[in-house]
């Protein structure tokens, strides 16, 4: 489970040998407690019977309970040990191993060998799915967890690999031998292959014309087929958005997300972790692309959604992660609103939470002094994704740690942008007070000469008017102006409330409720 995004991977406290078992008195990979026996037998049966509800319960509840009780700081029994209880079913073993490694990453520190083995397992699992021979129905939660974990382990590996300084000789030798493991090409190509083979993009297109059913069934196949490839393909689009953000390629990341319309209901909402990951990365990418209004709208919606629904997820294993992302998005929202103040885009409940957490910091960020950089730096560093360096390390030079390089580059670029916008808050203060003012007078108040003022005003216009993905210019400015030769005329814009979307959603929802009620049979 991807519960921690700590920047430094917690260093391994245990010797490699102990972890592998056999010599450690505490962990015996071949010992299978009765509860585990029962667990795998039931899970195997539910999968064969396509009982999605039961599979979901076992993943979310039973697995967690057993982990908590028996495997708090050891791995689960090895796949070889449980295989006899499930007819040595090849696919079930791949699925079991997927959970096995996920548990390992969550509770312990994986060794290099384990990282490599986990990659091999994902390769095998995805190959099976891509060959189209799978006819299972698995819960969306599990399918999302697979993609999410796959990307998380890739990110973790890049971080691990970039810390060359204290690597042992065996580790270096193993790294050199296994250059294919968690190779960036491999990871990206798998995600792309899942998107393509599932034809999910075409399915979503055809759904708009009423020729396909996907969203309506939450991706499940009610005609005897399998949902696995389609849904993995769907979630892989979010996976690709995420990987591209980690690389710093925000434009392409957003392109991968395009087939999913985030203003509407979709399968991405069916799993809270997916919903949050989608909006978090969408918002972050738009922030880096200077499309602040888009970022603010989406952050607002998701933060409101979390505020209203988080109580229902308290028992879920994803709860901690949910809370962390919530906090990070408040930080990003604070940053966006400091760079691009908006009055009516944020809901009251979100706004009050925002004021509580970052009210003072936002005030300081909006002042045009050098102290503000520290705060922008702090919030960005807290909330940003864990950027990676995708290239293979150099083994020749004196071995160095370069795991922070990618993050430092993105931070530098971001602060560079903030610096360019530094003077804008000063202009805004004056624009708020005057309905019109001569250039000469304003230049005097701002203690600059007229030509400099002209450049500042042009900067304001440029920075507050972003270019959308369709190439059209959109104004983000809450306070705007135009110049007639030597006079500045101030314009206060009134953002319109979007009732249309709201009504559409409510109409669809009510219809759903009425249909549900019709289906109820009273005794």
């Amino acid at each position, binding site marked *: 489970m991807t519960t921690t995004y700590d920047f430094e991977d917690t260093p391994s406290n245990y010797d490699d040998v102990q972890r592998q078992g056999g010599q450690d008195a505490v962990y015996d990979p071949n010992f299978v407690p009765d509860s585990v026996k029962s667990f795998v037998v039931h899970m195997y049966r539910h999968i064969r019977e396509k009982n999605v509800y039961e599979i979901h319960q076992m993943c979310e509840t039973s697995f967690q309970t057993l982990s908590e009780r028996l495997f708090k700081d050891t791995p689960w029994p090895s796949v070889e040990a449980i295989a006899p209880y499930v007819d040595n079913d090849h696919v079930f073993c791949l699925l079991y191993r997927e959970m096995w490694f996920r548990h390992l990453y969550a509770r312990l520190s994986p060794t290099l060998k384990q990282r490599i083995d986990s990659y091999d397992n994902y390769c095998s699992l995805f190959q099976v799915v891509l060959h189209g021979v799978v006819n299972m129905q698995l819960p969306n939660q599990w399918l999302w967890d697979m993609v999410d974990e796959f990307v998380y382990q890739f990110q973790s590996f890049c971080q691990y690999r970039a810390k060359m300084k204290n690597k042992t000789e065996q580790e270096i030798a193993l790294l050199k031998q296994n250059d294919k493991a968690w190779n960036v090409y491999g990871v990206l190509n798998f995600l792309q292959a899942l998107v393509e083979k599932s034809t999910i993009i075409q399915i979503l297109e055809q759904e708009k014309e009423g020729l396909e059913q996907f969203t309506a069934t939450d991706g499940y196949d009610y005609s005897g087929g399998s949902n696995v490839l389609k849904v993995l393909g769907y979630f892989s689009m979010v996976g690709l958005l995420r990987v591209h953000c980690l690389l710093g*390629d925000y434009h392409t990341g957003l392109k991968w997300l395009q087939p999913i319309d985030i203003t*509407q209901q979709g399968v991405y909402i069916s799993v809270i972790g997916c919903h949050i990951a989608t909006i978090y990365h969408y918002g972050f990418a738009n922030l880096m692309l200077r499309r602040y209004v888009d970022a603010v709208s989406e952050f607002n919606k998701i933060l409101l959604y979390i505020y209203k629904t988080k109580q229902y997820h308290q028992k879920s294993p994803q709860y901690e992660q949910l809370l962390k992302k919530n906090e990070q998005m408040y930080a990003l929202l604070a940053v966006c609103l400091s760079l691009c103040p908006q009055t009516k885009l944020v809901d009251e409940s979100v706004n009050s939470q925002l004021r509580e957490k970052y009210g003072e910091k936002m005030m300081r960020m909006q002042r045009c002094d050098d102290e503000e950089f520290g705060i922008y730096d702090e919030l960005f560093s807290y909330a940003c994704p864990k950027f990676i360096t995708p290239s293979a390390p150099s083994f020749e030079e004196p071995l160095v740690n370069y795991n922070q390089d990618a993050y430092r*580059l993105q931070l530098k*670029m971001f602060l560079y*942008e903030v610096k360019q916008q530094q003077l804008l808050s000063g202009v805004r203060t004056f624009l708020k007070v005057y309905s019109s003012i001569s250039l000469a007078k304003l230049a005097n108040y701002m203690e600059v000469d007229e030509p400099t003022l002209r450049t500042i005003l*042009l900067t304001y216009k440029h920075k507050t008017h972003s270019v959308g993905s369709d190439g059209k210019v959109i104004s983000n400015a809450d306070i705007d102006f*135009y*110049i007639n030769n030597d006079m500045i005329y101030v314009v206060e814009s009134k953002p*319109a409330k979007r009732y*249309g979307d709201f009504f559409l959603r409510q109409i669809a929802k009510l219809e759903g409720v009425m249909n549900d009620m019709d289906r109820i049979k009273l005794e």
Partner: protein
Amino acid sequence: MESPKEQSSYTVEQLVAVNPFNPEILPDLENYVNEQVTSQTYSLDANLCLLRLYQFEPERMNTHIVARILVKALMAMPAPDFSLCLFLIPERVVTHLLSLSLIRCTGEDSWSCFELCLQQMEEQFKTLIVLSHYLETGRFQQFWDEAAKNPHILEAVPGFEQAIQAYASHLLSLSYQKVPRSVLAEAVNMDGASLDKFIEHQVANSGWIVAKEDGSIVLPQNEFNHPELKKNTGENVSLEHIARIFPILG
């Protein structure tokens, strides 16, 4: 029948769409950059794809090509393409390339060779970043001054001057209803007869008007310099979205 040039760009765009995570297309993408320069076309997606491949395999990075990509990105302003490209160029790479030139520059005048490599590499990127900074902050005078000091970078890419002049006109159109001639002159780096010609061309094709009293330019009306023209876009709901509830309404 497509001309050979059209055919190859069609293929490259397809490659980027269908097979972007493939190191073998790197030479095609590099050629495509050169093609964009000579034929005055532009493809952000293809260039980002190439920069990503350089990120995956830094030893294959060609700084010359990267510099050309950055110039093309500058020409795309006001779009943020220049920043998008910079996000993908790791600092470590520049250091790495420095050590490579250390290896390549051997022999008698290895030091001067190395210094030259260093200068060329650093200068190219540094100058482009400075130029971008001036454009981002509306400082056209400083931009043109700096550009004049580096003719080799910019003359190598045809259409550069016109692209920046177009950006300047765009920015002025967002900000001014009426702009003094001197401000325009500074922004597009023209004066006298050539400026007159430029203005004439804009009058004929872009709706500019020259005010007779003082020679200032009246820029075409748009929603950014004429607030009353701002459309109330808030209430537009696309037909696509409405169509989804037709079954309910029907």
